[in-house]
């Protein structure tokens, strides 16, 4: 940054009067003795933006500074170990991602989805595969040993770590960060929030501890998928529905877990075509663009198949046709001209959706795992088909209300709430859920900070609650990766910056009339935070009893599940409030509105 030159001993620009804040970043106190109004930051994060407020600093300075500082925290986290570091035989997610780079740059494209499933077989959608290919090619320029076929398995080279860490940061700054900026800007426009407060919200979103810990600590590329989702949302907020379908296909095409959002996205798009009046051209447009995006997504895979077929490259010797092929009409034989393409498509789908896997993986704070591991109900009594059906039915039940609201009232303010509710429904009730999937509901929920009143105590409290609880449920995973210290530092830092318990009390001391939590909410929050802190103390000081080595983890899962359930209910209630149906059905009277007593949760 070049310092200004010339006679600059007076300010070059007259400071504009700052617009009166309505979003909860500033606390105004009136001194009783002098009757002077004094403004103070409502929570520590605001304090760091205080100099920018007083001097009306240009966003061209503020934004780069935010990005540089959030980068520092990411990169400092990535100094720590990653999942599976020096842990033979299978290593961890780091090895999975590295292996995908190894196989995509070395094998013909037709082998990608057929290659050895046992050693971290490629089981993500094509966009991840293409991304691996690009990163792998770049890495190959630095050091071919990193991605040598078969020979590089389980490599723990220190420079490889630097490269892989850098690839995560680069991917994030290319996708997630620009999308987050756009999305926050759109939300700011929608809710008329000044750019200073939007910048604060953006910082809070970018410093979200769970995302940093998983992507830059544990090692994954979730932010690419989440970034495409932010772009989807930003396009919806900007009224560009066709772009939103393109971005959503990219979201799905990077990680199938984005299905958590699909019902809400579909409901919103459908609602936009139905209300206020039926809009057939819009519907056709969305349908065509979506199909075309899927075609583009699979095009490299199919074009590569054409090339490999032309060059007569056989499939790996152990390749078995996926079960899905059995459902095809009998007249399709290996001799049919389009057989190789169908084979690739069905095999990729087979890999991406492995129905044969269990209901949940490891210990995750969702309903099924909680029921099972707390011995309330042993799920092993049920057949896997019944379980799948139960999970499906429960998920559908849980996601219907928000999606129905969004379909009937497809308004922009409702979007983040409905997306969060739907994602919570999936996380709590569906099958094959990872503890890391909690990032999906967290994203729209954290975005609430950039909405109207988002940094007032109530919403800030709930957003923080979900974020801190989510980090806490991932603690056992992070400890296994050797990330205990970054976990404590990043969560405590974020909690402190946002004025949340256990590092701040501003959300608990505000009364409900001043935009704080109701007494029900306060009780829930105090109880949960006390539980989390207490759990850490016990976990650190006391070994679990003989014969129950998992007791602490089970306790973690139980409390986490209950808390996430509360988050689901809160998001659902807020969706109802924001959608305005209560006015329509006459429960609320127009003009009365405002802070209604929160529905009793649990």
């Amino acid at each position, binding site marked *: 940054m070049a310092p200004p030159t010339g006679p600059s*001993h007076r300010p070059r620009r007259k400071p504009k009067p700052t617009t009166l804040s309505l979003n909860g970043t500033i606390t105004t106190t009136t001194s009783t003795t002098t009757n002077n109004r004094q403004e103070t930051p409502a929570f520590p994060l605001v304090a760091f933006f205080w100099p920018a407020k007083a001097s009306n600093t240009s966003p061209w300075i503020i934004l780069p500074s935010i990005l540089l500082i959030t980068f520092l925290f990411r990169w400092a986290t990535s100094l720590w170990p990653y999942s599976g570091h020096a842990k033979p035989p299978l290593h961890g997610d780091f090895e999975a991602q590295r292996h995908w780079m190894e196989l995509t740059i070395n094998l013909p494209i037709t082998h990608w989805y057929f290659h050895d499933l046992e050693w971290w077989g490629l089981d993500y959608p094509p966009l991840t595969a293409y991304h691996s290919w690009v990163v792998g090619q770049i890495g190959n320029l630095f050091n071919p040993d990193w991605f040598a076929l078969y020979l590089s398995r389980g490599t723990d080279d220190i*420079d490889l770590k*630097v490269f892989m860490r850098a690839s995560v940061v680069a991917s994030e700054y290319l996708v997630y960060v620009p999308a987050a900026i756009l999305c926050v800007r759109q939300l700011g426009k929608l809710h008329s929030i000044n750019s200073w407060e939007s910048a604060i919200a953006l910082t809070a979103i970018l410093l979200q501890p769970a995302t940093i810990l998983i992507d830059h600590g544990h090692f994954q590329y979730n932010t690419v998928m989440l970034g495409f989702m932010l772009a989807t949302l930003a396009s919806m907020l900007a009224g560009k529905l066709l772009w939103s379908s393109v971005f959503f296909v990219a979201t799905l095409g990077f990680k199938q877990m984005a299905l958590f959002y699909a019902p809400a996205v579909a409901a919103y798009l459908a609602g936009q075509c139905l209300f206020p009046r039926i809009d057939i051209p819009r519907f056709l447009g969305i349908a065509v663009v979506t199909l075309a995006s899927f075609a583009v997504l699979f095009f490299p895979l199919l074009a590569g198949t054409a090339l490999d077929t032309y060059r007569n490259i056989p499939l790996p010797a152990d390749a078995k046709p996926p079960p899905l092929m059995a459902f095809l009409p009998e007249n399709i034989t290996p001799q049919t001209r389009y057989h190789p393409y169908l084979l690739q498509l069905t095999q990729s789908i087979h890999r991406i959706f492995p129905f044969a896997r269990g209901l949940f993986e490891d210990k995750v704070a969702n309903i099924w795992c909680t029921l099972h591991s707390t011995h309330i109900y042993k799920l092993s009594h049920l057949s896997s088909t019944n379980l799948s059906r139960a999970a499906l039915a429960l998920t559908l039940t849980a996601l219907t209300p928000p999606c129905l609201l969004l379909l009937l009232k497809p308004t922009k303010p409702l979007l983040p709430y409905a997306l969060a509710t739907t994602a919570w429904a999936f996380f709590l009730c569906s099958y094959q859920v990872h503890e890391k999937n909690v990032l999906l509901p967290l994203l729209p929920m954290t975005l609430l900070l950039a909405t109207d009143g988002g940094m007032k105590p109530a919403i800030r409290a709930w957003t923080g609650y979900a974020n801190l609880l989510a980090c806490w449920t991932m603690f056992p995973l992070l400890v296994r990766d050797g990330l205990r210290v970054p976990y404590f530092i990043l969560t405590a830092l974020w909690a402190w910056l946002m004025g949340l318990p256990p590092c701040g009390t501003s959300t608990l001391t505000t009364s409900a009339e001043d935009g704080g939590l109701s007494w029900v909410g306060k009780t829930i929050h105090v109880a949960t935070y006390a539980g989390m802190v207490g759990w850490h103390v016990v976990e650190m000081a006391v070994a679990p009893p003989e014969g129950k080595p998992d007791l602490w983890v089970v306790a973690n899962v139980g409390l986490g599940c209950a808390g996430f359930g509360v988050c689901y209910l809160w998001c659902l209630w807020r969706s109802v409030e924001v959608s305005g149906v209560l006015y329509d059905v006459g429960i609320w009277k127009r003009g009365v509105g405002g802070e209604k007593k929160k529905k009793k949760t649990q």
Partner: protein
Amino acid sequence: MAEHYPTLLQSALAATALKVLLWPAYRSTDFDVHRNWLAITHSLPLKDWYYEKTSEWTLDYPPFFAYFEWTLSQAAQYADRAMLQVRNLEYHSWQTVHFQRATVIATELVLVYALSLFVQTSPAGSKKQAHASALSVLLSPGLLIIDHIHFQYNGFLYGILILSIVLARKKSGLLASGIVFAALLCLKHIYLYLAPAYFVYLLRAYCLGPRSVFDIKFGNCVKLGLGIATVAGLAFGPFIYYDQMPQVLSRLFPFSRGLCHAYWAPNVWAMYSFSDRVLIYAAPYLKLPVDAEAVNSVTRGLVGDTSFAILPNVSPRTTFILTLAAQIPALAKLFLAPTWDNFVATITLCGYASFLFGWHVHEKAILLVIIPFSLLALKDRRYLGAFRPLAVSGHVSLFPLLFTAMEFPIKVVYTITWLVVFLLAFDRLAPASEKARVFLLDRFSLLYIAVAIPLIAYCSLIHQLVFGAKFEFLPLMFISSYSAVGVVGSWLGFLVVFFTS
């Protein structure tokens, strides 16, 4: 009283989070140096401290620092006893790393306290400026790089220095200031470089009457003398008792070391060495005698004697005389006008002189200039003009301390962020000067800062791509020479500002 946000404590907390995250980062041999000192002071009797040489990193700081290490070692035994064994060279269990890193962060609280005192004692009109200066020191990239990655305890030591400077602000604090500075000297003797400023200031403002230099205040002289003698006695007494002073002093002042440190600190001697290197190529044309033996040694010798191929060799005596000569004008001005501002300016100029002309100067010693200067940088725009190139060159010159790929983004991004945020904030806060600016210093600094970007890109990336591992001294030489220009430029600028105001 209106608070300034972010407060020092808030900034310290946020910075601490980053510093803890940096625990697994690269650490230099200084880490083992300090671990070894923990072990020596913990496991050996006091009379062996300055004789022990199992590790090549012998104890070469004054006794107070040894006592400091002894204090830390009392806590260290609960973290990991193994680090306290003298034979455990390069021991680095994670408990050891976390413990030693944590002590750096914890002892830095002294700096936070000293800075908050600095803001408190500033006059009401310049509180805002003082607050910004304090934040810039607290969050200094120099301290981050040297203390929290490379590993040293500068935050703690500079905290004591600032404490002593701030105490000197009030008449009633002069005695305490002198004693605190004496204690600082017994912690790390590098601060001897600043001692002339203290000597002159305390002499003029404390020992002599305000109206006449012949009005000697004997009471004050005795108090100050007794205070300093007590501090020195506490530090060196035991070693005098054991009759070890020659050994202690030979450890503290190893004059057998070379003129330039392994890596050239950006000072006059770096420019001198650079000219010598260039002259080697020019010598055949100019028919100059070349010392063949020296041709291959100048940049290589780790801690050996530096010899020059063409230019005359430099003796420690020469550097000493030059350093003193560079300090005398400022000291004279301080003697004539003993104000606190002049005192801080003289400290800064003493730092400059010793950094630019001193014998075997470490690049880390640039903090000796930057930190006192920071306290003055916001006095008015002319000071700021001289500060800017120093802020850039001083921090860029620290980059070669960290050479690992993983730490590269941290040092560069942190420094850039600091420069952007603080230089812009300073620009907004610095009041207009009463006098017109003499120099086109702004133009110079703009050009200078602009050059930094391609230079860093070349040294960190392009050089490696073009030459691979060959000519590895080139990037170092460029950074060193570039930084030397900045430091010398800001020194000249500061001299002009100081002597014309």
